[in-house]
């Protein structure tokens, strides 16, 4: 059965058209690309008053360009397409993104887009957690022209982002981290087509003596309304040699940064316990990527 509330579906070809439509329909409009989240929102009564969908896949935001500074990813690049990009497929630096993209089934990867996934501001998703661990920057287009906003600042709350009216996500920028950097992402799910019960992404930069120059530990899934930077865990590792024992302690430390919820999938205690385990394992995986 179709979503009878949706009475208009537009496929604009330039920014002005998009802005015009956003202005015209206001809260009744939703920007989509793959549109793979719309029916799920509707089933949970979260499509409040959305009447029109604005499909931005004709705006030419489907390119990925790499330079010495980083990776520029257009908003409508699909998961499948991004998986094929060599920087994502092979690098240690963006390992977390590679890991996250591999989880959903084929049918989702072929359709879900990077921009759509971030704009949804869904804390159960995987990509936001992974992208936060690699310091991604969100590129936004709007009436006031283009701007950039750090990923962590992009999320405002459950299904809420910090876009202004008339703004939409036009892409992502992944800055290339220093040498001897790696990231990893692990998702804890019940079966292979699932939202995360907990997910964890880490990004680390080490020097030649394995001393941690920078660490990002991000926890997502059902732990908060937005992905959480586990600052206790991060500060424990800062400027320390990243030994097995320290990685284990970093996992332990994550627990104090979290206030997860209990729901029909898992209890808060369990989410916390898993976050600890995943953090340590993700760190191990990331560090192993640097050795390679």
């Amino acid at each position, binding site marked *: 059965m*179709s979503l009878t509330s949706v009475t208009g579906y537009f496929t604009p070809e330039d920014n002005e058209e998009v802005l015009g439509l956003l202005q015209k329909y206001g809260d009744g409009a939703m920007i989509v690309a793959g549109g793979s989240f719309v029916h799920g929102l509707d*089933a949970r009564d979260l499509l409040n008053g959305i009447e029109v969908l604005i499909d931005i896949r004709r705006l030419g935001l489907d390119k990925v360009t790499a330079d010495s500074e980083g990776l520029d990813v257009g908003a409508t690049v699909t998961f499948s397409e991004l998986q094929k990009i060599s920087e994502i497929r092979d690098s240690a630096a963006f390992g977390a993104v590679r890991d996250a993209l591999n989880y959903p089934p084929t049918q989702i990867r072929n359709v879900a887009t990077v921009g759509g996934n971030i704009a949804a501001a869904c804390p159960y998703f995987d990509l936001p957690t992974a992208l936060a661990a690699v310091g991604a920057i969100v590129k936004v287009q709007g009436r006031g022209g283009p701007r950039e906003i750090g990923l962590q600042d992009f999320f405002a709350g459950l299904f809420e982002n910090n876009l202004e009216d008339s703004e939409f996500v036009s892409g992502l920028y992944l800055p290339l981290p220093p040498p001897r950097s790696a990231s990893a992402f692990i998702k804890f799910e019940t*079966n*292979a087509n699932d939202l995360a019960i907990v997910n964890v992404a880490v990004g680390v930069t080490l020097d030649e003596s394995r001393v941690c120059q920078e660490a990002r530990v991000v926890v997502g899934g059902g732990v908060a309304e937005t992905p959480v930077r586990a600052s206790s865990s991060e500060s424990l590792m800062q400027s320390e040699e990243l030994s097995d024992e320290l990685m284990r302690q970093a996992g332990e430390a994550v627990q104090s940064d979290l206030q997860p919820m209990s729901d029909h999938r898992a209890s808060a205690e369990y989410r916390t316990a898993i976050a600890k385990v995943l953090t340590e394992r993700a760190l191990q995986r990331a560090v192993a990527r640097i050795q390679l």
Partner: protein
Amino acid sequence: MNTTVVGESILRPDAYEKVQGGKGFPVNVTLPRMLHAKLLRSPYPYARILNIDASAAEELTGVKAVLLPKDVPQKKYCPVYFVPTMAASMVQDMVVMSDTVRYAGQPVAAVAATTPEIAERALQLIDVEYEQLEAVFDPESAMREGAPRLHEDAENNIAVNPSFTFGDLEAGFEGADHIFEGTYKTQRAHTCYLEPRVCVVDSDINGRLTVHSSMQHMFGLREKLAFVLDIPESMVKVVKPPYIGGGFGGKLDIGYIEPIAALFSLKTGRPVRIEQTRYEDFITTTRNPIEVYLKTGVKSDGTFTARYALSTLDCGAHATHGAEVINVHGMFGILLNYRCANQTWEGRTVYTNNMIGGGYRGYGSPQGSFAVESQIDEICDELDLDPIEFRLKNAHQEGDPHPFNPEFTLSTYRFADCLKQAAERIGWTDRAAAKSSNGHKKRGIGFGCQPVWVSGCMGFPDIYEHSGAIIKLNSDGTADLSNATVDMGSGQITTLCQIAAEELGLAADKVRMTYADTDTVPFDAPSHASRVTYSAGNAVKAASAVVKKRLLEVAGDLLEASSEDLEVRDGVVYIKGSDKKISIPDVIKRAEGPFVVMTEEGPKPTTIKEKGTIIGVASMAPPSNPSPSSVEFVELEVDTDTGEVEILRVVFAHDIGKVINPMAAEGQVEGGFQQGMGYALMEEIQFDADSGACLTADFLDYKIPTAVEMPPSIESIFIESNEPTGPFGAKSLSEPCVSVPAPAIANAIYNAVGVRVRELPITPEKILAGLGKL
């Protein structure tokens, strides 16, 4: 017994169509001028309807009719297909649409419109005024004094409370060296048939109904629909679907959709279609949760001296299958599986404001086997006894009277062989002692049994058990088989065609399952209770024998031989021990040809006694109810940091009598493990504690195993014991393979990490808690 077709992995004839689109599913049925109906469902778990204003809905363009509780018959019935509607052992407490809502999701109004979208929009325009009542969601609370009474005649909300006693329980406990007690709980799970419940009902000017539905019992649907509408059964015709997209017992009762679609069709004069959404399916049918308390007495050597069990089944708002599930559970989940002179079982089917239940493969035995097989392992662990020896010591023996009905015997019974062969295959004697693995991933092996089961329902009070078939030979040497067995994916078509082909002496691809409806074929009980191979198979074999007898009579006439001296091989009739023969097409040409044939010498008469279509009918009850037997061993690994379980290997052994189709039989075991594993580790329909609303109404929230979670291999061992009363020696298969995984997995987890979980599903969280890490 030498067979040429039976015993071969004949490819399924329906597979050809299914890989190219599958036109035959009931969900594809469309008729001219068909209307679409939708049901409005109550958001409240317990409420009285004070008023319904549907005027705005009625006025919406495209809406053709609206039905409210006041517009539908208020006759009470039991919706279960395989019993007579007013069977004394069941509870007749269901009404098509009631003024009293007893569970969240119960339909309170319906709209028929020209499109499903219009019908859906019309539902939103219906204004229902509810008076909410205090609801009760668990059986213990429901049985307490002062709990809200959900049905007039059910005191303490107990729908039925059967009990069975053998011997002297007290003496038995006195004679025990050790007594063990424990409570085991199982959850609400869904069959997850992928084709939704769907029907199209049409009516003619005389009010005669034609029904298409995704269901497991044609004649049951006819009987129930006629009853609900208060019309003669002959006014209802149910068309046999070529196949349906899964049932697993979840389509064994009349839903709301068939009566409502029928009423709409009679009202509008048009065909009416209703297809349930996946959310609606999740709240339509379920495996009942059962809490089992076991108290067991044993001698130090492991012999049972006394067994007591108390089972509490939550049937939700209406009893539906719950009055029968509790009996099957008590009998085949608990009491009958092992020998013990002193046993008492008490069961209670309890009303709550939860969703209603349905049938589901195993039908109460998975809930029982989980408890019994877990406890046996606990006993063995405590007393340092070998779990295989324990079971063998207490097992029934071949030749014993059947534990359920002493008029039958365990004519073939190879439980011991199942245990030994499966144990050897998995390497049971090499397994590590419990909890002895190292590292954070620990391995374990465990097993579970379904020692006694059924091949159909022969001998059970109030349950239909007879089958029929019509078989006709065609002039091209093929045969048409028509019967009322619904193929829901387990291979019923293939099995019955193979049995017919074997009996007739035809190649497998010469027998075709053809059209049927309730006007044209004899009664058949449903596709359930593991009965089709044994019960329907026997009837098909009998009908084939009638055809063969007639074929040999006519062929004998043509070959000038007695039919006793003839045999059929691969479509040709031979005089035994000679090369005088005649092909079946030639026999048919004669039998169906004109009486007088024009020849060169002029018209010549043939003989009258050859004339007529070669056709056979049978309608019969099966001769017995032989017990198959099965065991499953599971090897798995537990991640002690997360509690996750990975299944590594599965070995299943089953005393099957005779395998009709090995590939199909393996398929049943492999599919059964997916369901059993899901039941053991992840599946649970959950509800909001306050509102009773369903929290797991799609596959995102209700988890079933995908290809990724399944083990890399599932091995099947079939022990052929050649059951004398079965068609070519066959017994049944399909349900035990769903009952055994959960206890096997629970026991393997204990072997791996020493954590005993007595509540399903055994989630990683429960294991981690059991390890003391939460």
